């Protein structure tokens, strides 16, 4: 890129930044009161969880979170549409393999813990799902080309699990008269946990599959990086 042009853009962007800073400063001077904080905290006891962020994510603004899962799904479907996955990495050396052997279970365990604890302390489905995904990443780095994921058919079910459970519960609640995604009093806690569990699995599988970066290869064992790409739908 032209040096002068990039300098010019720099100056313009800097001007924009100064303007934004000025506006932001004046904004802070306006007193918006409590914003949504007090309300969110006030009604926390009814939400079924005691971690306010989880309450917002899965109760007050659960609709956003449902769509967020859809975004994640869209990204993975997009990645899959681009072709089969590339072969993975060389199998890990013994030292790394030994480490993988205990890092992966630890990540999965920690994920489970984060999921459970998310109801009342920092943590929740996304963090937990990310750890599951990280376990997949580590597996692939260690030479497991499929990142430890099951067959394509299974993966397809798992990646829709989160949004599926979420929206079905939402619709069921609408059908039973509570309203879409409006949990009946007292039932919120376990419904949220159910949704979070499904979401965690879906997020974990989706992130790991996104890292694999292509449609999964079918030939399960023996998994050879050079095996022809078998495609169940393409065969017919």
């Amino acid at each position: 890129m032209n040096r002068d042009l990039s300098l010019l853009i720099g100056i313009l962007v800097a001007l924009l930044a100064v303007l934004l800073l000025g506006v932001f400063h004046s904004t802070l001077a306006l007193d918006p009161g409590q914003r949504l904080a007090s309300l969110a905290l006030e009604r926390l006891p009814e939400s079924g969880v005691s971690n306010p962020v989880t309450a917002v994510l899965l109760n007050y603004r659960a609709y956003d979170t449902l769509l967020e899962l859809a975004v994640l799904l869209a990204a993975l479907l997009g990645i899959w549409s681009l072709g089969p996955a590339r072969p993975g990495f060389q199998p890990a050396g013994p030292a790394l393999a030994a480490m993988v052997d205990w890092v992966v279970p630890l990540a999965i365990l920690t994920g489970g813990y984060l999921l459970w604890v998310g109801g009342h302390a920092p943590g929740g489905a996304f963090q937990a799902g990310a750890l599951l995904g990280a376990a997949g990443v580590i597996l692939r780095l260690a030479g497991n080309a499929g990142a430890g994921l099951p067959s394509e058919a299974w993966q397809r079910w798992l990646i829709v699990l989160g949004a599926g459970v979420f929206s079905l519960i939402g619709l069921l609640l609408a059908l039973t008269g509570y309203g879409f995604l409006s949990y009946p009093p007292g039932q919120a806690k376990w419904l949220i946990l159910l949704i979070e569990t499904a979401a965690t699995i879906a997020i974990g599988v989706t992130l790991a599959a996104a890292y694999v970066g292509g449609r999964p290869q079918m030939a399960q064992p023996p998994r050879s990086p050079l095996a022809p790409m078998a495609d169940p739908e393409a065969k017919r």
Partner: protein
Amino acid sequence: MTTDSLILPIALPLLGALLTTALPRIAPLLGVIAATLTALSGLWLTGQVWGGDALNIVLGGWGLPLGIGVAADGLSASLLAMSSLVGLGISVYAVGYFAGSDRGLHFWPLWLLLWTALNGVFLAADLFNLYVMLELLGLSAAALGALTGSREAVAANLRYLLVGLLGSMSYLLGVALIYTAYGTLDISLLSERIEPSALAATSVVLMTAGLALKAALFPLHFWLPPAHANAPAPVSAALSALVVKAAFYLILRLWTDLFANITTTGAAFILGALGAGAILWGSWRALRAERLKLLAAYSTVAQIGYLFLFFPLLQAMPPGPARDDLFAACVLMAVTHGFAKAGFFLAAGLVQKNAGHDRIDELGGAAQSMPATTFSIALAGSALIGLPPSGSFIAKWVMMRGAFETGQWWWLIVIVTGTLLAAAYIFRVLSRAFGQEPTPRCFVTDARAEIPALLLALSSVALLGLAAGPIWSLLGFEGVQT
């Protein structure tokens, strides 16, 4: 319970997307079922809005401002009806288009996610929820656009994705400023609280700029032609007819609803001027385009320009029946373009499939051997030009009247020049259909694919051009009675 039905046009395609993902073998069947149900729910909702007042619901049972609002007024319902009918047409067409191809497998879930996001945008009443919807829209659109897998398509859609992200970021920063100042994200609550200030002005600029990028408003349109021209035909139709409309809808919503009391004549003039640039530049490039689908894509750039010409007129027109007419005409223009451009792209896809290419100068035989397809292009084309009878003719008539009545005659020059250029590029294509090729045996050659295209094109002409009244009724306007 009735208000819960607001969620159906969003939840049904989402469920469809999940099912088609999980059960790829029967994806086309599931996809068509989901599409039909989605369309029906959208139309039913439109009927509800028509019959009564605007519908709204706050999800989660927490009320505002804690929960997320979903709402349908006349404006939302008009666009929802468009997305329902056009979406159904695209879905039926896609079954035939992708038959026997592996790409169809990927098409269905992504297309249904795209539809989810579209309806989600039209029905959203919450600024942050809109951000999530826009991202879902952008991601699924870019993924769909790259489905042909050709190098050009992938490169163009990668650029589209990045541009969309940039737009979202700009929009989101505006939302952050608004939340900082006003402490809520709900559009109806905000519209009561927002007052003219540097902050409000900055947010409106940030949000409008981000959305204008997504709506491909000149000169931010550079990403659109290659992305739309290289996608598979049903996807091109969805992108050009529907997706850019979502961003435009949002700008219209923000300007006329949320920021109604802080927009100024100068700002509206700038939007109008950019729209004028879009009309002239887009039409000119469409005239010079070598490929049919590229022509259609540039035509979208121009048509988006017409929509933005309404802003200075709306700003200058005092509230009253005349302004209502302008507003309704703006919506009519957007909806008509949705039908016309979808029909055009679907037909162009058939021509391309039949001829093996879509270079305009070599299309003669292909166009002449497919009367129904050529007819669709002609009908859609006359709606793009704005010839009567078509929805855009009525819209242009009202727009020109508004220009006279507000004394902004200079826009007329733009409208007229754009119309003539549009006629030139449409007839450049149509003239290819008159050659000395053998006579085709019958009108329709491939019913499953040709009829959706024909019906969409016909709707833009006959339905919207001869019975545009329902748009006024939906928006709750009486119309000028003289």
